[in-house]
């Protein structure tokens, strides 16, 4: 007997791809996808249902379809799409509704949630690598990462009330790859990328294929618990920008946040939507538990995942070709000088 899987947030980001892949798995009988908006892409074998917040569609589906596995991508693209943009309060409310529905459904055996490594926040005091137990609410202040933590906590309470349900939380690092679009990838694609003057955050990336594989493994496997999921290694923001050939505009933190809120008012998505703390300090996670307990090995390192993303975007003003041209110029000048010297 195959699994019946409910995937939330299928209309945006990687949700649709994940749902289609799960539907193709021999262990899965059928996949139902829900979202608050209709999908742009063809979901194939996935049965799509539109769910408004506050209606009973989700609990009805769980009951009538006999759903045993829930893959909660929370705010859809916003969550799975990178864990950098703020999740809005409505997706917190939606998550709580979903959990309430699960609690009354005796068939549910497994709940998988895609969270984000943003739950750790970014400060200058942070250790170089966060392990899974290092989440503290007060550190996050008023930041939007609090919302992630809130949903994770609700899930933990749910797990306490339903010990028969296996609960897995995957905290995904910044997603990168040829198709995925996140607040960070949008930010990095600006012609001039604002950075915080005097700071160079450490970043980690998770390739979108690895994210899909990890979520798939969590949905169909039998692991329990909370795991950081990221490609190996770290990169500096400055290094990432050089690989993209994008010039940066270092601005004092305060000016940057003003620019950020101004652009938010103008609804120019992407521009400086990154929290200043993240752009100042970044942060990396320890993935020992992912490898040894969850049993997942990403195919892409941080640098490889980023390079795959970099290949998919047009090179910036300081792209490799321009650099090569400048190098050629230097060489010819040097050669000429050398010839004179002789």
């Amino acid at each position, binding site marked *: 007997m195959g699994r019946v899987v409910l995937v939330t947030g299928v209309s945006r980001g990687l949700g649709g791809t994940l749902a289609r892949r799960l539907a193709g798995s021999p262990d899965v009988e059928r996949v139902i996808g829900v979202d608050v908006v209709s999908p742009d892409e063809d979901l194939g074998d996935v049965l799509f249902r539109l769910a408004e917040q506050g209606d009973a569609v989700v609990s009805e589906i769980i009951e009538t379809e006999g759903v045993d596995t829930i893959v909660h991508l929370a705010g859809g693209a916003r969550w799975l799409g990178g864990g950098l943009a703020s999740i809005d309060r409505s997706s917190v409310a939606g998550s709580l509704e979903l959990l309430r529905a699960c609690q009354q459904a005796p068939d549910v055996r497994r709940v998988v949630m895609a969270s984000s490594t943003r739950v750790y926040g970014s400060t*200058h*005091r*942070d*250790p*170089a*690598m966060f*392990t899974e137990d*290092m989440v503290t609410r007060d550190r996050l202040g008023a930041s939007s990462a609090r919302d992630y933590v809130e949903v994770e906590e609700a899930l933990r309470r749910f797990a306490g009330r339903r010990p028969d349900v296996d609960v897995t939380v995957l905290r995904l690092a910044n997603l990168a790859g040829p198709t995925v679009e996140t607040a960070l990838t949008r930010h990095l694609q600006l012609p001039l990328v604002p950075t*915080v*003057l*005097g*700071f*160079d955050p*450490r970043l980690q990336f998770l390739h979108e294929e690895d994210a899909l594989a990890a979520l798939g493994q969590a949905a169909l496997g039998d692991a329990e618990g909370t795991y950081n999921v990221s490609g190996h*290694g*770290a*990169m*500096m923001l*400055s*290094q*990432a*920008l*050089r*690989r993209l050939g994008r010039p940066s505009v270092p601005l004092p933190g305060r000016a940057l946040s003003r620019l950020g809120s101004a652009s938010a008012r103008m609804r120019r998505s992407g521009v400086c939507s990154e929290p200043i703390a993240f752009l100042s*300090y970044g942060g*990396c996670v*320890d993935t020992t538990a992912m490898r040894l307990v969850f049993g997942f090995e990403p195919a892409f390192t941080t*640098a490889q995942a980023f390079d795959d993303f970099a290949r998919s975007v047009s090179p910036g003003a*300081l792209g*490799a070709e321009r*650099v*090569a041209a400048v*190098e050629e110029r*230097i*060489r010819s000048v*040097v050669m000429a000088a*050398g010839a004179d*010297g*002789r």
Partner: protein
Amino acid sequence: MAADVDGDIDGMSRSARRLEEAVLFLRGRLAGEYEVDDFGLDTDLAERILFPALRPLADTWFRIEVQGAENLPVDGGALVMSNHSGTVPLDAVMTAFVVHDRTGRFLRPLGADLVFRLPFVGSLARKGGATVASGSDAVRMLTRGELVGVWPEGYQGLGKRFSQRYRVQRFGRDGHVSAAVRTGAPIVPCSVVGAEEIYPLVGDVAWLARLLGLPYVPITPLFPWFGVLGLVPLPSKWLIGFGEPIATDSYGAAAADDLDLVLELTEQVRDTIGRTLVDLRRQRGDALG
């Protein structure tokens, strides 16, 4: 060295080759084709830019003499514990420089979180191999076999008055010794003579320090009176001595929570540093000599 290998090449081609290397280096930097480790150490930048830039300061300005470099393990994790002085942590920078110069290894300083809050300084510190002084980072680095540097006197040592120089302050209880015991890493005592005299601290603008969120705002004979010139460190003569490693691998990881043992080891290191300082000062003689 290179000249010995191909001694007959003329000066022109050697400078051309150096230029070629520089161009390649620049190309790599511009394209972002280099690696940083999980803590942010940029080996490429440190070896090509940061350390060469520090060499004149170490060799010509402070004329640093190193003793006992053979006490630094050639591989594997070890905890280097040093006295701290000089108003700004130039002693940590110089120690990292001589460690790399003598052994080729990177000293990984555990710095106060203030360092990482400061623009430019913080990101440069990370690229040079430093990380935040926290128990988890210390254990993580030692487990990875890094040479970790700590200055357990903290601001008490760094910001002490000139009249208190070479008096080793109380060691903070920040769990570094415990991290060494947990990972079985040897402890190498390190004594630095000379950093005390670079910015003789004679006063502290406490109210300004509070305002700026700094541990102190120093007044030295030259700063702030001579402005930027007052920031030039006095050219004192430096001696850096590395003592014999103290093994911790016989205690077992569980002993890391044994407070008596940890305090005893801490005192042992502190004593060694104190005694070595007396010795090195006698050897050095005049501070500016």
